[in-house]
């Protein structure tokens, strides 16, 4: 699916065993607000089309810093910048790939 990524975007490097943890985090913890299928809930939808037009770096920054005044918390204590970028790229492929 790498061809779906924006041209010029480097694939985030995350070891396979950590990827399994991040997938679980994505589905269950992100999913508790954004929906298991990422169609949204209290939080916004995180579908490939809703993320289109914003860079990996900008979206990773949202994950790391959170969004003030909303329930979106900062995840920087738990995720590195590289891992946050990996989360964004996984979301861009569609969440069925994360299962």
């Amino acid at each position, binding site marked *: 699916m790498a061809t779906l990524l924006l041209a010029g975007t480097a694939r985030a490097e995350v070891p396979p065993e950590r990827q399994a943890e991040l997938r*679980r985090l994505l*589905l*269950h*913890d992100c*999913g*508790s*607000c954004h*929906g*298991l*299928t990422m*169609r*949204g*809930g*209290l939080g916004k939808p995180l579908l490939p089309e809703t993320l289109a037009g914003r860079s990996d770096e900008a979206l990773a920054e949202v994950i790391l810093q*959170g969004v003030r*005044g909303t*329930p979106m*918390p*900062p995840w920087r*204590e*738990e995720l590195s910048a590289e891992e946050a970028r990996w989360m964004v790229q996984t979301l861009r492929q569609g969440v069925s790939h994360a299962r």
Partner: protein
Amino acid sequence: MPGRRGLLGGLAAAALAAGRAEAMTAERGTGDLGLVVERASGSVQIVETTGRSALGRITGLGDLSHASAVFSRDGRYAFVFGRDGGLNKIDLLQGELNRRVLQAGNSIGGAISDDGRLVAVGNYEPGGVRVFDSVTLEPVEDIPAAYGPEGAARSKVVGLADIPGRGFAFSLYDADEVWTVALPEGGAPEIRRFRDAGRQPYDGFVTPDGRHYIAGLFGEDGLTRIDLWHPERGVQRVLPGYGRGEEPLPVFKMPHLRGWAVAGEQVFLPAIGRHELLVADRWDWTERGRVAVHGQPVFAVARPDGRQVWVNFAHPRNDVVQVVDTESLSVVHAFTLGRGVMHLEFTPRGEQAWISVRDINRVEVFDTRSLARIASLPAESPSGILLTARAGRIGF
């Protein structure tokens, strides 16, 4: 009505112990039955709390992340509300999906009216409440959560609960409002709006006597209270400024509120962004104390006798359940159960606590006096555990 055909008619019987299946072919009541939501696989298990076993699994229920359920007044049917807008009616005796409608794009939960005739669903998309006939699931009423100039905006609805008088109360997350609606048979809905009800209500509940509706607030320290006996008194605050101006911690999971917060003379409420339970007086709603706990509380559930409150916690501290003694307001026990303790439910008399542990794929059952584990049931990423005793309670 007991079911003659037997519960396991069309179920995934292969997943079950053979002896249990035979036991379930007899006529039975539903008072000791319940559901375990398997959030990732879109299924529920039917369980019973006498032998503490699973009776069967029903699949094809859609996206069950954050799924909850209410029960028909005879305890035979469960209405399971899926995240994807699915409203599923499950026959607990036949062990099958009776009806399913996709009533919205994105939902958060529901309630059943005191007469058992109406099932209401709170929706994020489109924001509002939709009401259905509990027998047929035919639509009865559509209540858009419209707000702002000319009502052009639609708010996400949270904290939907039944209230006495064939009514429901709910909160508008985006509009900072609480609404009540009564739905008299054959008449027009009677909607009452409470504006300026506090910033970003995230959930709400009705006290077990049906008198007060309480909304928890994400956007400010405090809760909102409405006296349903005296709606003319408007919105009142509970525990305003409980954070004392300190910066809250990041909230990795929203707490949940229901009537289980009330334990005897006290109400136990999760603090947002703090490792604390807030304790309010049941009658004058002033602060009685605080309990320092392991993490940010998600569910704080009173044992039905009110002597203990069991608490689980938000990510990343979600592997623990603590037991709080309601007399001393101290933690008297802690269980470490595995990552992803999602929910807990007491049997109606409180002798058992059923706890779902997502990441080990188990439902653990504890004796609440000895605190010994008395059963452990396999389940796929279990979340909500909902027992039929809810059928007879206001606000459940």
